[in-house]
């Protein structure tokens, strides 16, 4: 086992980015619902957001100079890892209340963990990001934990 996760990298665990606030629009819900092939009218009309809509709502919008040559945004919450190629990994989401047009939601992301595993084709780095989404009153809307894999 190589040691890709150095003590310096580990110091980044617990780092939190500045909260980001976004307005939910019916048009954005409709675009997401069409793009994902939803069947249900309440989603296609944009009356309420499908469960994974927040991924689109809070995807980073950065300038093109901040995209890597493979088209991925440079996530400033993350340290520079020694492996670069991203694979999707996994998601865990706890839902507390639905998302509607007109909602103003705030997301706060924290880097909560990183570790190394040996894959069949070489070492892999795993890291975990927790995103808490709240409404304007500070009530929880959802919590999401993403595990991403670098190869």
């Amino acid at each position, binding site marked *: 086992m190589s040691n890709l996760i150095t003590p310096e990298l580990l110091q980044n665990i617990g780092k939190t980015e500045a909260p980001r606030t976004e307005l939910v629009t019916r048009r*954005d819900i409709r*675009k*997401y619902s*069409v*793009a*994902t*092939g*939803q*069947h*249900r009218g309440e989603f296609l009309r944009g009356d309420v957001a*499908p*469960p*994974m809509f927040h*991924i*689109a709502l809070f*995807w*980073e*919008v950065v300038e093109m100079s901040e*995209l890597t040559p*493979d*088209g*991925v*945004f440079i996530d400033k919450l993350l340290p520079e890892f020694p492996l670069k*190629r*991203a*694979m*999707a*990994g*996994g*998601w*865990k*989401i*706890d*839902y507390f209340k*639905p998302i509607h047009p007109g909602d103003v939601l705030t997301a706060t992301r924290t880097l909560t963990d990183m570790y190394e595993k040996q894959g069949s084709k070489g070492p892999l780095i795993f890291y975990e990001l927790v995103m808490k989404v709240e409404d304007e009153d500070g009530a929880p809307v959802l919590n999401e934990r993403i*595990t991403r894999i670098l190869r």
Partner: protein
Amino acid sequence: MTEVLKFASVDVGDELPAREFSCDIIQSFLYNAALWNAHRIHFDYPYAAEVEGYPGLVVPGPLMGDWLTQCVLDWLDGAGTLASFEYSNRRAAYTGDVLHFSGKVAAVDVPAGTVTLELLISNDAGDVVTPGKATARFANG
């Protein structure tokens, strides 16, 4: 007329309706546009093949996660809501692949009024592509 799903009639082992999915390049474009995702493995075939070594354009992982939630909500049909959901992308799928959803009831928590579901998207070869798990809370629980 479709019968309304009732919590009391849900049993461990009940199967969710099967569904097939296939993401073509237009859906992949719309999905990545809705996210604002420019990752070239989804739309630039020479890059995906020559640089990343993929045999095709990669179906976005979270899109398959979304499909799992759709199958749960279609089964619930308004009788309950999604309380939690998790999934992982075990292997890549490619635009044009025919993918198969299956799901079943893994547990019923009567006092809590919740049902735990095991979910799966597999490919034509039978490989596990996207396994998942969801907890649904019933309104009539």
